[in-house]
């Protein structure tokens, strides 16, 4: 492998994992955020060879068997996705946050997401999505993916996700 190949180029151009996006290419925008050994990094500023022996997680690892993860689901539900270009990076930053902190404060959410720029949404919906995801992750530590049926038009469904399921309602 050429030493000059970035982890971002390796993911997109060699593995065809194109979920990870290139925005600025200099670590400013966060579109290429992946988890390297569980921690968010910008893949444009990591050489592929540096990742040798490390675990790398991308947005492609979120959905299971065609079902979106809870985190992805709340992004959809809250309207945190508009053009969608920044979303994979947003998801990975949020995933990194929820892995180290299952009950983040608003300040902690803002700090964790500050390295991801979005030109469409104005951020409020994104922050709300991460708040809801945190609630959902605490309610369901195994992060069992929601199915289309358990979802609803109202993003608030996640707050009561557990009780809804116990009620046997879909």
């Amino acid at each position, binding site marked *: 492998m*050429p030493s000059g190949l*970035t982890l971002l*180029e390796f993911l997109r151009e060699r593995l065809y994992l194109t979920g990870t996006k290139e925005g600025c290419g200099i670590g400013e925008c966060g579109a290429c*955020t992946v988890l390297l050994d569980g921690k968010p990094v*910008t893949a444009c*500023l990591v050489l592929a060879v*540096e990742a040798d022996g490390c675990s790398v997680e991308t947005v492609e690892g979120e959905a299971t068997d065609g079902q979106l993860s809870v985190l992805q689901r709340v992004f959809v539900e809250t309207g945190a996705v508009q053009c969608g270009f920044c979303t994979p990076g947003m998801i990975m*930053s949020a995933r990194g946050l929820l892995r180290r902190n299952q009950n983040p404060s608003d300040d902690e959410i803002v700090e964790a997401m*500050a390295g991801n720029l979005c030109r469409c949404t104005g951020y409020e919906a994104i922050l709300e999505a991460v708040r809801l995801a945190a609630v959902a992750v605490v309610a369901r530590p195994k992060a069992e993916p929601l199915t289309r049926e358990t979802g609803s038009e109202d993003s608030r469904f996640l707050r009561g996700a557990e009780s809804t399921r116990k009620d046997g309602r879909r």
Partner: protein
Amino acid sequence: MLGRFDYQRPSTLPEAVRLLAESDGPAAILAGGTDLLVDIRGRRHDPRILVDIKRIDALRRLDVDSGGALTIGAAVPLNEIIERASIRRTFPGLVQAAESIATCQLRNRATAVGNLCNASPAADMAPILLALGADLMAWSARGERTIPLSSLFVGVKKTSLAPGEIATELRIPAPKPGLRSGFLKQQRLRGHDLAVVSAAGTYAPSTGVLRLAVGSCAPTPLLLEPIEVGRSSKAVVEEKAVRAVQAAMWPISDTRASADYRRAVLPVLVKRLVADLLVEGGAP
């Protein structure tokens, strides 16, 4: 592709020193890469070989010895410093400076030692480490040497490190009893901008000595002469500090701010910092 270069990942310091010495073109030391890789991409830097020091165990140290002295290895990313509760308790100013740098993603890569070696006048870790009296340890074929941080910076992006020399760790002396520390930075935009000006300081009530250092207001970060607080009032100490800063600073105008703005805003920042440090209960 960022460029054409060879990549080596030694597991020991002697091996790293040998690789740098044997390189038949410009060599660069790769730690977090958040400055270096951006420079290579921008064609401001064109090394033939990158020597990645992150797998050298000796450079991954982050510990406090029994006397309270702190060692930060050259491969330790900023977030590791931030997340260490004992460092936050003992050296709050150090954590404030680290937290003010860039974004979570970059702090998972960028290192304190790399921030210093890049030697930007705006290096955020420099003022607080100067005020804390840190030393930088360096390794080369000739052995190890201690560089007092106050003699590391020699110009814009220039250090007193010799070619082939590797900065290995920072040593921060044990804090005086009750040591307070703090860091303040003026910037246009949180995270995505460098400091317009910055100020850091320490104050030990047990010795009555106030140490201040400032950034982005001269070609290098500046450590000011210590100020004896004694029984002076807060207003008198603030005034002394402001006069010391005004005498030392010689800022430029650039894309971030004019020299006049820097001259106007740094005294405000310094006053605020001094007031915070002198108040019982500590840092900002």
